[in-house]
């Protein structure tokens, strides 16, 4: 999964001329890298991650994902790319609280058109992989923060993505859980998955292969 961005800008609507979140960001990420994006609140980290993950569109600049210009992708192609090639991990987990751990992990498989036996088998295996064997039936509210984030990781891995995007994945966790989650990301990266992680935490950032520091919508070099 290679990512190539040049002069990315993002201007949020509002006010007279809008509010610029990205003011020209250029970087390349090669397949298999572990990149940490750091910087103070409001510097545009999350916006950048949303754009990389095709959840948002840049206002200007160029962004090629695996060599494909994302401006040429239809909405359906973006959805399919998110489903098949990208896994998201959020600070607040973003699990569906009415669904069990197993059902949450099954969702991406459902959208990929898997049948229910396939879904159950794969989701069970993924939950076992993240250490939640026996907790398949629990709903998120019955799980600890660390466990919820593991469910989220299992969900992110459902369709074997090549890119994991983690937005402050340890932001809501205690230090022990944080360590676990970080170790998982490192292990996933070792399996060849490209990981991009937004974080405040300098210690965590230090474990990444490469750091991108942001300030006021720009990269600090």
């Amino acid at each position, binding site marked *: 999964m290679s990512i190539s961005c040049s002069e990315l800008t993002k201007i949020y609507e509002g006010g007279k001329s809008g509010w610029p979140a990205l003011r020209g960001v250029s970087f390349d990420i090669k397949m298999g890298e572990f990149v940490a994006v750091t910087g103070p609140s409001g510097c545009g980290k999350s916006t950048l991650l*949303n754009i990389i*993950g095709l*959840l*948002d569109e840049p206002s200007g600049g160029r962004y090629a994902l695996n060599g494909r210009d994302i401006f040429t992708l239809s*909405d*359906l192609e973006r*959805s*399919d790319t*998110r*489903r*098949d090639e990208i896994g*998201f991990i*959020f600070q607040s987990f*973003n*699990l*569906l609280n*009415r*669904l069990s751990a197993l059902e949450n992990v099954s*969702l*991406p498989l*459902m*959208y*990929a*058109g898997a*049948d229910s036996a396939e879904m159950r088998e794969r989701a069970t295996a993924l939950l076992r992989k993240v250490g939640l064997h026996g907790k398949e039936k629990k709903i998120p509210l019955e799980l600890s923060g660390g466990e919820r984030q593991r469910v989220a990781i299992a*969900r992110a891995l*459902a*369709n074997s993505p090549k890119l994991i995007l983690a937005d402050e994945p340890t932001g809501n966790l205690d230090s022990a859980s944080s360590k676990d989650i970080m170790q998982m990301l490192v292990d996933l990266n070792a399996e060849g998955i490209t990981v991009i992680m937004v974080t405040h935490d300098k210690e965590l950032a230090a474990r990444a292969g490469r750091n991108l520091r942001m300030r006021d919508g720009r990269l600090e070099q």
Partner: protein
Amino acid sequence: MKSLLNAVRTGLTEIWAHKTRSALSFLAIAAGSVVFIDAFSAIFATYERIEKQKEVSGMARVKISQNYSQTYSSPDDYVPPPVLKYDDVLSLREKLPGFYMVSPEGRDWRNVLEYGEHRLTTSVMGVTPEWTKRDFIYTLKGRFLDWHDVENKLRVCVLVKKAAPPPGNLFNKSMLKKYNFTGGFDMLVAHYDLLGKTVNIDGFTFTVIGILEELPYSKRPGTITGSSQEYKVLAPVTTLIHYNFIGQQSLDLNIDTGSEQNFDESIRKINNFLKIRFGDGDFFIVENQLEVIRERIAASIKSALVTISLGMLAFLAGGIGIMNVTLATVFARTREIGIRRAIGASRRDIMLQFIVEAVMLGLIGGVLGSALGYLWGVPVKVMLGMGGSPIKPWMPLVSVLIAALTAFAFAIYPAWVAAGLKPADALRAE
């Protein structure tokens, strides 16, 4: 297909998870269903009644009666107007042979009927066998008057036995009590089997050769001509003339020309006949009942349209209810939409999810409403004395279908709103 199944599963989960909201949506659409089924069955009943009435009364009807409102320029001009006699009826029959029915009626009032120790007033109507051809809403015991009776002026009669008033009809009961409709003659016929017996009418003995039992109200279409004649004792018109019951009074003449196509032509012929026989002057009213019947049918159709539009409005209200609920759902679940989009749901998936959920609300509401509509239409209405609605098995099916379609139509906009949310924006929602 698979995504549809998944959407159904998700929808059921959501409906179950929000029981109050779902119940309210069911009720909104169910209310529509109830009104719709009621309206539909009412329309169907009207349609069936009209068809039956057409069959029973015929369409191409004419009624000839004496014109009582002659105008004279001065009292000296007054000459007794001509009357329609039985000879005239026979002549018309002969001159205009194609008509399906030519039925004269001559009524006498305040006749005294005696049977055993019973003595009561009634009203005798002189008719011919033609009388049975139209507006015949009876079952006959014994036999009806035949031409032999008429030609020989026999003193035979047929008595009419009234049907019991519709059950549970409070209004009718009180009316009956107040006006004592069931008293006297009706009671006598109801309680004694007079077939074959001899009764005495105004001093003349008549043999009862037949009893006409009115069909029960539920099976009677009513007469489309709007005739509200009360028939009690029917006897040959010639007999009543001969024994001076109706003497030289003018007969009424009910005609069925037999064909709507040549109706105007028939009316012209009838007018011509009257003119030749009685001369100029509006001595008789030739009532074009086809026009009246058509007006009645048109009025029925109009009221049916009003009723069905009420049913449709009810569905519209239900649909708006569903739209409101679905929109509220979309806003309440914006974050969820963002999550689903992030993990790969396409716009189509999101749209399908909300539409399927709404359609299921509509379907379940429709089924509920059909059940309630049936309960309202049959047992409850009967209990209230309104008479059950003739609900056909396909009406609830149509109603459920329309409920689902309404839900579908009204879910499109909210679902489109949901599908149009940008994933990043949706994820930021609280």
